[in-house]
């Protein structure tokens, strides 16, 4: 394979722009006084993330590689990148008010989020294990820091430490798996690997390597049995950071998982399908059952995201079934649709959680929402809609997400997976509608602090509109996901 003297930098334009913007904001922040620096980097960060998303959208989506085939840009990468960038921008946008109130509005926060995001968008474009690992670690290191951003609080410090230790362990497993694959296959590039395994056979060492890689990536998407960090980190981290954890890194890790599993190991589907089915079932059940007794809404959202990742993994299990290429493609596509809907529901829910303040203190107890329908009917309506949507009740977006995922499972004949999935969703519905119950049926508690920041309001309204009216206009998202899938599988 000829390596060009000057690689095609244009394909990495979003990454390059985001890296430059992050560095520029860092320098700017360092030279300004502390108060105004925080504001500048916050707005600058949102703007940079959105501009990066714009760059991604404006690029030609044809599948092309650069940097000696270690970096790929295609429709799939573009789809994932836009989701990651937009959700990260939304989180930075919402975070400002919280950070100011907790006196942790340092200018580094948006920059760290930008760097983490940079790692994420590199991950989904990785076409080589080394590139993958670089992106993953850039993301993880930045996330470890912001998890303990409230460094005076023990909970936040604990969250950061826990995340770091367990994250490092997962990275170790991933590296070990990658080295096994390299040892047996002699290459780390996805393209040569895919060629090697094109006929379905692989040495045992590679299979063991795949298991370790899957374990490492399962940690990143917080799938059972590698989920243990999730509730503690969600609860301990500052709420905007939790919001970020719930969306952007999950999307990135899912993107990575799809890329790795259907790329180099796509023809070994029979070997790893059982693993994905197992972690999917385990995540759905644990996400549903363990959340029932949670009193803290952030912990609840942690279990909810574990469960939702289980649903998303159904799509991957379907994609492993190589029998019919159409069904396989549908599996990936439906997974992307599910993830996009998941992002909107989560961002909206966290916007509500970020406004749960009484007397300047954050409320994290679910019972703190009591009587919200009287004290703030619009917010109660929004959260109610998000909860019904997450429970998969039509006509909200979450229903269509689940519909698509289960459609894939049924088409691929994975009935046990589908049946366990729907039954788990009934169990999960219990705790989602319990939140509705607290808001609507219980006697009113004191009202939350007002006014609500403009940031939260706008995010809340956008998510609400999406979740409510998606059912009327599902076509653009579906078409986008279809194109992304086609470019992943066809390229």
């Amino acid at each position, binding site marked *: 394979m000829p390596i060009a003297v000057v690689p095609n930098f244009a394909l990495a334009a979003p990454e390059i722009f985001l890296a430059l913007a992050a560095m520029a904001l860092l320098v700017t922040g360092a030279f300004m006084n502390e108060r105004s620096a925080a504001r500048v980097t916050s707005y600058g960060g949102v703007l940079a993330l959105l501009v990066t998303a714009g760059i991604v959208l404006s690029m030609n989506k044809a599948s092309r590689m650069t940097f000696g085939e270690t970096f790929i840009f295609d429709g799939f990468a573009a789809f994932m990148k836009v989701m990651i960038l937009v959700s990260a921008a939304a989180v930075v946008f919402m975070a400002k008010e919280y950070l100011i109130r907790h006196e942790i509005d340092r200018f580094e926060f948006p920059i760290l989020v930008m760097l983490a995001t940079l790692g994420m968008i590199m991950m989904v474009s990785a076409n080589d294990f080394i590139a993958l690992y670089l992106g993953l670690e850039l993301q993880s290191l930045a996330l470890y820091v912001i998890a303990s951003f409230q460094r005076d609080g023990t909970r936040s410090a604990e969250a950061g430490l826990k995340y770091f230790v367990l994250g490092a362990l997962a990275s170790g497993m991933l590296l070990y798996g990658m080295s096994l694959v390299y040892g047996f296959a002699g290459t780390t590039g996805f393209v040569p690997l895919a060629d090697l395994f094109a006929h379905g056979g692989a040495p045992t060492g590679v299979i063991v390597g795949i298991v370790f890689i899957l374990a490492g990536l399962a940690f990143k998407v917080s799938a059972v049995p590698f989920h243990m960090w999730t509730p503690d980190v969600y609860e301990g981290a500052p709420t905007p950071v939790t919001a970020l954890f719930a969306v952007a890194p999950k999307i990135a890790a899912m993107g990575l998982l799809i890329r790795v599993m259907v790329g180099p190991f796509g023809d070994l589907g029979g070997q790893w399908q059982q693993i994905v089915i197992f972690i999917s079932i385990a995540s759905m059940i644990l996400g549903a059952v363990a959340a029932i007794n949670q009193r803290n809404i952030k912990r609840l959202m942690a279990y909810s995201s574990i469960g939702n990742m289980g649903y998303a993994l159904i799509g991957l299990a379907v994609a492993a079934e190589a029998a019919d290429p159409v069904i396989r493609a549908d599996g990936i596509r439906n997974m992307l649709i599910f993830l996009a809907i998941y992002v909107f529901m989560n961002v909206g829910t966290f916007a509500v959680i970020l406004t749960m303040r009484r007397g300047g203190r954050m409320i994290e107890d679910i019972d703190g929402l009591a009587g919200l329908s009287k004290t703030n009917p619009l917010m109660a309506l929004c959260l109610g809609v998000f909860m019904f949507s997450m429970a998969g*009740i*039509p006509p909200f977006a979450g229903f269509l997400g689940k519909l698509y995922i*289960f*459609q894939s499972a049924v088409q691929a004949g994975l009935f046990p997976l589908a*049946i366990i999935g*729907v039954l788990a969703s009934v169990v999960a*519905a219990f705790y989602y509608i319990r939140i509705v119950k607290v808001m609507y049926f219980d006697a009113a508690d004191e009202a939350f602090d007002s006014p609500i920041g403009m940031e939260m309001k706008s995010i809340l309204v956008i998510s609400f509109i999406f979740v409510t009216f998606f059912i009327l206009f599902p076509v653009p998202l579906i078409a986008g996901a279809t194109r992304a899938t086609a470019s992943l599988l066809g390229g």
Partner: protein
Amino acid sequence: MTDFPWLSVVTFLPLVGALFILFFSRGTAEQVARDARAVALWVSSITFLVSLGLWVNFDVRTSDFQFVEKFVWVPGLDLAYHVGIDGISLFFVLLSTLLTVLCILASWESIQERVKEYMVAFLILETLMVGMFAALDIVLFYVFFEAVLIPMYLIIGIWGGPRRNYAAFKFFLYTLAGSVLMLLAILAMMYQSGTSDMTRLLTFDFAPSLQTWLWLAFFASFAVKVPMWPVHTWLPDAHVEAPTAGSVILAGVLLKFGGYGFLRFSMPMFPLASLEFTPLMFTLSIIAVIYTSLVALAQEDMKKLIAYSSVAHMAFVTLGAFAANTQAVEGAIAHMLSHGFVSAALFLVVGVVYDRMHSREIATYGGLVHRMPKYALIFMIFMMASVGLPGTSGFVGEVLVLIGLFKANSWVGAFAATGLILGACYMLYLYRRVIFGQLTKDNLKSIGDLNMREIAVFAPLLLLVFWMGIYPETFLSAMHVSVENLLERYHSAIAAHGAATAIAAR
């Protein structure tokens, strides 16, 4: 027939009304409540009048779907906004629109808390109910079917009685658990047949082994909705805790989802499995008829008693549907309609005294005839209709179902007939304890009789109970052709399969 989109107007007019209330009611709490009531009453009345237009323009000579509207919704999946009605669904649409008006009237004074939200919930519920009966796309059907849970959950939970949390959760989770399995079956059907269009699914022959599973999945959903023994336990709780109007809608319309589902989906789409499971349906229904009637006899709470009687009555519907002959199926539909009028009326009857005394305990009352003669009369008529007195609507359904049952299986018919006797026992016993006897309790001595609003609520139901009882042909004539078509499809599919297996065996 015109191009006017009758069905969509009937479906979405209440939603428009709900949005109107939501966005345009301003002023003090009192003004908002008054406006919300007025708008809700107007909108639901207009909707009802428009829905009468469906009946007027309905062509009784064809079994095709009428007032069909179809727009592409999700092109890739072949999903469509596709609605239309036939002789089976026509009256359920009318029942939904009528009962909503009555519900809003009945809640005029009893609901004083969060009136705006209450009216919005009822109007949205009306949209979903009508949409459910009119849907001709199976995913669209599911969307409406399942979305009904949201307003009903809120109605029970916000305006319900002391144990409303428990009842609301139980209602929601029971129904959801049944429905999600149906969702999987729907997806499997779409995959097998390549379409979500119900008009095509109605004539699609699924493989016999697959039919069994699909039938069971749909059964899980409809059996909970009907509700059949042993998954009926959510119903008494939900009825007892729901506000009066909530119980009316629940008994009047929501329970019909199950019976309608069996007739619309299970029988024509999975005829072989339906035949295979007929003994199961008969057994469960017979148990329900006898067991829940006996349970009703022992109740101390009026609403609970009527709730158990609903289970027994709905068991007649499932018996009739699966007896699979013309009389029985028409009887099942007629019985659903009659039960829609009568049980709705009985819950309203309970609501009248509940509004006055805030108690549903039978022991609280006694001798009401001395203070409330009009009430006693109306109660008696509906009680008799529930028992199945000739000349009332209850008689028509029951007798048709029994004729059909004796044709299909005389043992089942004989057991089902005991339900009539037991029904008379518990209803008459209830009536005696509430209405007759000496008026000894002090707090009852000043109780007032029905006022004009309450009479206005009962009047249309009275009219319908007698109309259907005396001249049922008005209703039956519209469903003849559709029912014949359904049974034709059912029996020909079974015969074709029988012939095919005979050839294979040879």
